[in-house]
């Protein structure tokens, strides 16, 4: 008899003192979303492998070729070393920029409504999703960095710098996934989001310092690169991973502000999706 009746505790026991929730709500929701993302990756690793193909081609073909051509002046740094952090940032950008599709799928499947009837403020839900995208990006980053090391890129051994890499990848992915979720809130359909995502990824990538130094760019492109958060992500990753001179504090600051703005914008538009 003990197990036959549903052992659900008496109704109303989920009430939690407000003080507990206010300061723990946001980190608790972020952790919950990141765990789900890791569980999904564990169950299905296909995407991890297929998504590794493109960056591998960039490093193997583009990287090796341009190393030999010596067409892009990168000072004393071998071009492949210079390129690796850029490709890392690019592949996290690709993950993030289509992340909004998931939220549209969640909307269509009723998942979003269900999540929003839990005690989770909209901003906490978006922050959770943004860092879940960051978690996925990190698993991707491991693959790219292993490949880079195999190709002979000299990566840092300093654990503090690796910690910095994790933070920067998380923040960069958080911003771009929020950009994607913001577009989702405006476009309201998967097809449109796919189209817009395709249209902006390449300009974001080529309009950054991922492939070549800013000094080589024409002035108009330099302006774009300066307002492009991807450039700051690449600058920080390059500094941390291969030790080129960078502006770590500025990069970090820009990415924090960008992520905060992204979270605010995406949260504000979330209401449109559940209507």
């Amino acid at each position, binding site marked *: 008899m003990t197990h036959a009746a*549903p*052992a659900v505790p008496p109704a*109303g026991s989920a009430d939690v003192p407000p003080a507990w929730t206010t300061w723990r709500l946001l980190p*608790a929701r972020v952790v919950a979303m990141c765990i789900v993302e890791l569980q999904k990756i564990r169950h299905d690793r296909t995407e991890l492998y297929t998504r590794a193909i493109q960056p591998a081609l960039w490093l193997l073909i583009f990287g090796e070729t341009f190393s030999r051509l010596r067409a892009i002046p990168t000072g004393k740094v071998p071009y492949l070393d210079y390129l690796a952090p850029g490709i890392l940032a690019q592949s996290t950008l690709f993950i993030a920029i289509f992340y909004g599709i998931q939220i549209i799928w969640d909307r269509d499947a009723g998942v979003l409504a269900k999540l929003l*009837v*839990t*005690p989770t403020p909209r901003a906490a839900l978006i922050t959770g999703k943004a860092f879940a995208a960051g978690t996925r990006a990190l698993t991707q980053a491991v693959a790219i960095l292993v490949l880079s090391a195999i190709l002979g890129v000299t990566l840092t051994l300093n654990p503090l710098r690796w910690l910095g890499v994790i933070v920067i990848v998380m923040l960069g992915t958080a911003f771009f996934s929020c950009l994607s979720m913001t577009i989702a809130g405006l476009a309201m359909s998967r097809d449109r989001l796919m189209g817009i995502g395709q249209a902006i990824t390449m300009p974001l990538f080529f309009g950054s310092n991922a492939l070549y130094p800013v000094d080589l760019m024409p002035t108009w492109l330099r302006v774009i690169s300066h307002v492009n958060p991807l450039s700051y992500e690449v600058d920080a990753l390059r500094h941390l991973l291969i030790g080129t001179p960078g502006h770590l504090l500025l990069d970090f600051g820009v990415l924090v502000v960008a992520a905060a703005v992204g979270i605010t914008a995406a949260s504000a538009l979330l209401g449109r999706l559940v209507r």
Partner: protein
Amino acid sequence: MSDQRYAVVCRGLRHAFGSAVAVDDVDLDVVEGEIFGLLGPNGAGKTTTIRLITTLLPAGAGMVEVFGLDVARHRMAVRRTIGYLPQQLSADGSLTGRENVELFARLFDVPRGERKERVRDVLAAVKLEDAAERRAQTYSGGMIRRLELAQALISSPRLLILDEPTIGLDPVARDGVWERIQEVRRATGMTVLVTTHYMDEADQYCNRIALMHRGRIRALGTPDELKSGLEPGATLEEVFRAYTGDQLEESGDFRDARRTRRTASRLG
């Protein structure tokens, strides 16, 4: 208020999408502990009413209280009292049954020390303990609905809100879902607010019913009251037709129809 306590009170509730009025001046009282059925054809405003009660939509006019809490002012507190099962199939197929429920345990701040046990208990309550480690995409339609019920029950809600819980299910699976709901209600005394357009289910399981049509409540009472009010020996279906004017299949917009069909096709 007399000795009766109310789980839900709506007064003058109204919501419009552009010029289309979905919920029009609705007054509704759901008594604590009862199973209250909101009936109506597609597009009657049932789902919009549910969304207003669950804090998903702001009311255009009027007010909603859940256990005495004004929904507009105490959104978070109201959500902690509600378990919600949307019309669409909303379990994540790429996660296992257990992981699906664990997510909602975390989102409702079930303390870490109790989480494992509570998840196991609700999965047992919906008879899914043996399938808990399988991914939900391998589940049958009825199993998915029961999994979603477990997700909604993990927070021990005082009010369980079910939007068309048995849509697209075969009769055996429908009974399975309702039996689990009944068991949990008997064990916990929670209130259940359910929308459906299956008249037999409403007749069999609901203590009271509100008939909704074109955004308004057209009739309210126990199934017996409604039936005898029309004519002796009338069925609930006849009552429904009398109030909605033979509109059972003819209303609802494109989005309604698409959502219903999508859910039905995913249930196979």
